């Protein structure tokens, strides 16, 4: 644990050079520090997710949380922006990849960066972390119960099937899933794992009994302390192995 951190809102260049806002949390000290792009869940750029960024900073990572809904409602509160994004069909996949690329570039540009960048996402962000890792040059990716990595997203959303992109996975993938979850279901997690095996991609999956969707989320009834505690240990061990200079 580091003795201190600094966190603030900033502006970064996202997809297509668009300016979007982002929350950045950085550890005190001289570094060099690896970076982590944190992808928020569909309900938005919320306090619970900023606390995740703070946690990474407290463990010696520069973390950035881009506001993926910024363009849908500039200046609006995060909950209104999330609703506007949903009403517009959700975050388009190409825009997501561009925004994560911009966030990763921001982290690499920091004077105390060690040049290594990981990505982590929760819920819809789990799918987006996988998509990012299949689309960008990153060093490690964590998918926390991302739905529709396997299968076809519902009509009306700005998302496309992405399992076939697994052959482009550029980095090791850590997957953390609840066995009581239905999106993704245990069968869908198995299908993803089988595809990664077939392609000989480096991955590490952990499945938790008695846990469903969003078991990391301390603000929800779905929070499962034992699964979350083990999951955080897995995350820091994984990033520690793959993001060290």
């Amino acid at each position, binding site marked *: 644990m580091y003795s201190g951190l600094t966190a603030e809102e900033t502006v970064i260049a996202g997809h297509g050079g668009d300016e979007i806002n982002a929350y950045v949390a950085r550890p005190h000290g001289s570094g060099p520090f690896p970076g982590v792009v944190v992808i928020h*869940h*569909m*309900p*938005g750029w*919320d306090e619970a997710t900023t606390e995740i960024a703070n946690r990474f900073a407290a463990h010696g990572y520069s973390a950035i949380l881009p506001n993926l809904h910024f363009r*849908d*409602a500039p200046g*609006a*509160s*995060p*909950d*209104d*922006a*999330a*609703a*506007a994004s*949903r*009403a*517009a*069909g*959700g975050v388009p996949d190409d825009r997501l990849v561009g925004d994560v690329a911009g966030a990763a570039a921001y982290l690499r540009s920091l004077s105390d960066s060690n040049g290594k960048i990981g990505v982590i996402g929760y*819920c*819809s962000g789990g*799918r987006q972390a996988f998509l990012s890792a299949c689309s960008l040059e990153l060093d490690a990716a964590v998918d926390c119960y*991302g*739905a*529709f990595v396997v299968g076809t*997203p*519902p*009509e*009306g*959303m*700005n*998302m496309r099937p992405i399992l076939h992109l697994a052959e482009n996975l550029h980095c090791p993938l850590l997957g953390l899933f609840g066995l009581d*979850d*239905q*999106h993704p279901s245990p069968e869908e997690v198995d299908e993803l794992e089988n595809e990664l095996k077939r392609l000989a991609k480096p991955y590490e999956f952990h499945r938790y009994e008695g846990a*469903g*969707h*969003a078991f990391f989320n301390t*603000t*929800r*009834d*779905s929070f499962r302390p034992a699964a979350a505690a083990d999951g955080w240990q897995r995350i820091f061990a994984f990033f520690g192995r793959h993001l060290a200079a």
Partner: protein
Amino acid sequence: MCSYLTSATALEGSGKGASGWFSLTSAMAYFDHPYHSSAEHTLNIDFLNENEGPSARVAVELTADSARALLRCIEEALAAAGTAAAPSGSYEDCHPRPRS
């Protein structure tokens, strides 16, 4: 669960949001993660005026049982009003939101 499923309808009426009353043009309903409720999933309704921006929104997050109870209340209230609340035939059925 991330269902992503959203149903939408045009509607007429008024709602009171953070900055006061405004006219409503539509509503979105979805059973998915809430923003505020501690429940893992809730039936969420956004009453909107899309012409006045994303902050023209009245939001509710209801448990599934609460949403069904509310439906019954609405139906009872409309039935009790008799002909005064008879369907005009001009409303649009709820539908999955079209791909943008």
